């Protein structure tokens, strides 16, 4: 009668519980990874779609174009750049906020023919995109600027051509002001001051379409209006990398135009651009092979580009 209390579970029950637990664990594990993969897929699709939607921003002769991108949830777009291959690559990754948490995926979609200038992470539900043609000396690409609508800018004392362009583009978050006539700026915006001695968030030294942009400690050099906007709306890393990519494409286009001169159909043309183009290509090459060189050392190249463009304009057979 010395019976000890014990739980009487038969072997079959024990077996069923263990196997059931394993099956349940596997089911939950696979379901979680399935959901994660689905989310990743959704974000990759969004990245690719954003890239594709940039196609209509490719412009011909018309000036800047503006468009608004709206997402259903709070979205973080991270356009980045690398220099691999012949043209470098534009990478776009998208993260979506679900239940107050940002997804962890870091997968990027890659494009070779896009040049997006923006801060490292742009966040929001609505974004402005606009594009301008980059020409040096011929059209190289349409470059795209991306910024969220919730971030406002105040352009103070902008030159008349920039002021007109901003007015025509009709942004809701870029305001204009000059020191004599206070405009719509409230003071909470990112201040972009042109040729000012005051210290603003962004200072632009602008002279005849070229100059320097100072953002805190960073100095970015620009040589036309398209690069000026690029420097305003992007960080230093993106700006320098995308500028290098643009010059990679310029180099290949220079080779194409130089080869075009050798075609028999152009043999009767009085065009003396060949030497200019070869020298121009060499200068770009010297810049591209030196990783240390930044936008500050490009003055010579852009000066040459202007001369080549003028020579092309006055030749009896234009190359572009």
């Amino acid at each position: 009668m010395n019976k000890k209390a014990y739980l009487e579970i038969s072997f079959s029950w024990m077996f069923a519980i263990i196997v059931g637990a394993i099956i349940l664990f596997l089911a939950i594990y696979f379901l979680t990874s399935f959901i994660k993969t689905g989310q990743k897929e959704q974000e990759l699709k969004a990245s690719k779609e954003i890239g594709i939607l940039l196609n209509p921003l490719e412009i011909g002769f018309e000036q800047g174009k503006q468009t608004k991108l709206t997402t259903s949830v709070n979205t973080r777009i991270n356009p980045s750049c690398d220099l691999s291959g012949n043209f470098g690559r534009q990478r776009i990754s998208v993260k979506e906020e679900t239940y107050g948490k940002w997804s962890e995926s870091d997968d990027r979609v890659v494009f070779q023919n896009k040049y997006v200038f923006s801060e490292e992470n742009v966040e929001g539900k609505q974004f402005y995109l606009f594009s301008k043609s980059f020409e040096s000396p011929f059209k190289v690409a349409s470059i795209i600027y991306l910024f969220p609508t919730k971030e406002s800018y105040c352009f103070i004392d902008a030159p008349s051509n920039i002021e007109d362009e901003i007015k025509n583009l009709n942004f809701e978050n870029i305001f204009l002001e000059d020191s004599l006539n206070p405009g719509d700026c409230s003071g909470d915006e990112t201040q972009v001051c042109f040729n000012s001695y005051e210290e603003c968030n962004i200072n632009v030294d602008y002279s005849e379409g070229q100059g320097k942009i100072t953002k805190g400690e960073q100095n970015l050099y620009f040589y036309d209006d398209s690069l000026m906007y690029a420097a305003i709306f992007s960080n230093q890393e993106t700006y320098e990398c995308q500028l290098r990519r643009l010059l990679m494409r310029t180099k290949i286009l220079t080779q194409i135009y130089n080869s075009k001169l050798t075609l028999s159909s152009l043999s009767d043309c009085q065009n003396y651009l060949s030497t200019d183009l070869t020298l121009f290509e060499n200068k770009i090459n010297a810049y591209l092979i030196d990783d240390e060189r930044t936008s500050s050392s490009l003055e010579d190249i852009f000066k040459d580009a202007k001369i080549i463009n003028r020579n092309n304009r006055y030749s009896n057979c234009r190359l572009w």
Partner: protein
Amino acid sequence: MINKTNKAQMKIQQMAFMIIAVVIFFALVALFMISFKLSSLKKDADLLNEKNALLLVTKLAESPEFSCGEAFGGKRISCIDFDKVLILKNKISLYSNFWGVSNIEIRKVNNNTSEIECTAQNYPDCDYLRVLSQNVVGSDYSTFVSVCRKESNNGQVYDQCSLARFILSYEKNE
């Protein structure tokens, strides 16, 4: 005693069969779900490729590798510089995957039934120029463009333009 052991062995056998059946069932469900997911992924990829080609076809002619710019007097839109494209064809290996399409073709609009590929020597007496050709099965989108090039006759240089279809093909996941 022997009877009890047989009964237990029988039960273990039943259990093992049951587990195998359950595992097979779940494996089949998983396979079905994966194949469903894969087919929808392929469909999505096709849709995105199609969208890319559709949006690109109207704008690619404005791309600096193709566009006439101001080379043929004044600003021209939807105009392809044939001289430039001939050079581009020789350098096309640099541009593989650049636009995200598989084939780019320029086909002259004429009544000819012949299929003569254009070269610098036979232009304009030819029918088509395949700029990028990746030999894949796919669908295409096209738009009408003017194709121009410089011609010379007795030292006189003039512009020769004609109407053509600019065709982009994208790869389809079968």
